[in-house]
């Protein structure tokens, strides 16, 4: 029996559980929007960012989005910071802390 986490209401009876307790949807935790935990939110300045990706390396919640774009100077495909996934970001401030001080492309602000 395959199991759809999207339909899970938190009220499953034993008979409705997937056989063997198998989780069937890889990466399904993305359905849990942990973004509403935050009291501070990171604000990213695209123009300041140099796409060093240090914030990507250290965000515990995989919230730094990545895009692949052509670098006009080199003519090669480049990997760039494409902003922050605020639906899952918990507002820890690590990204702002690790962004190189001379760049300071991320600042933390009140979430609401």
């Amino acid at each position: 029996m395959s199991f759809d986490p999207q339909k899970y209401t938190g009220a499953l009876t034993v008979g409705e559980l997937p056989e063997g307790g198998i989780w069937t949807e890889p990466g399904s935790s993305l359905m849990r929007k942990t973004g509403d935990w935050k009291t501070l939110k990171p604000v990213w300045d695209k123009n300041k960012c140099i796409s060093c990706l240090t914030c990507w390396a250290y965000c515990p919640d995989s919230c730094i989005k990545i895009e692949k774009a052509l670098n006009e100077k080199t003519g090669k495909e480049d990997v760039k910071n494409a902003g922050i996934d605020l639906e899952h970001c918990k507002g820890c401030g690590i990204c702002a802390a690790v962004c190189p001080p001379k760049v300071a492309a991320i600042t933390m602000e009140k979430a609401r």
Partner: protein
Amino acid sequence: MATLKELAAKEERFVGGHTSCAGCGYPNIFRLTLAAIKEPVAVVGATGCCEVNTSIFPYTSWKVPFLHNAFENSAATCSGVEAAYQSLVKSGKIKDESFRFIAFGGDGGTYDIGLQSLSGAMERGHDMLYICYDNGAYMNTGIQRSGATPRYANTTTAPVGKVNPGKRQKKKDLAKIMVGHNVPYVAQTIAGNWKDLTNKIEKAMSIRGPKFIVVLATCPLGWVTKTQDTVKLTQMAVDSCFWPLYEVENGKYKLNYDPKDKKIPVADWLKLQGRFKHLFKTGNETLLAEIQSEVDQDWESLKALCDFHSKQGVV
């Protein structure tokens, strides 16, 4: 060795939406580990923060096959998975995709409860990597002391009071225990140094047989630290020489980083952590001095060992 752009270009195999606290130190270990490995991977996790946070029914943060077993047996389970895979490949029932096998546990599940099964799996020589994420206490169940808790840290089962200045015993040296198993690769690193961490993962993946890596990770809840300081805190553990970066290949010790004149007093690192707050009260200067001299002694003997092996030439 991969650059950040190369690591980030791949599809993430460990995703967000898990329930670790804001600013938690361990998730990066698994994000970066999976990013650094090219091959398909199967992961076995012991009970602990990571397992609980990433696999609460019906959600999972893993995009690789993931199996949870108890505190005491993730290494045994992983060794069984690996042996079954090798057997199925050998008998031609599945094709060899060069699968890699990783078992993990926190410090409670590794230094203490799972140590016997880890020891067995390493001794039997399974082709697997065991990763211990060490945040220095049973954080998942409420900050109880473990064999990895540093001396004089405050925990709920070795609390600071009139009689006790926190945990009285010294932290176990797990990397050395694993070196004693004569496995081909043992390394010590931190969650706050992506380059050192991913280099060690890549190195481990290039070696067939049992491998072990212990990774220091901040726990803002248990260390009582600011969430934004998570990365800085493990870096300071290295700069103070409390937690040196080193690796041991075929029994030969190699230092990966020496802070030299950038070495900071261990008090600078302890000061940022609420679990050591009591050490900064008047009257406790001797406790601080004791920690510093212990760190210095361990650092000097590690350096001497690394020097000795480097003079013998690289293996």
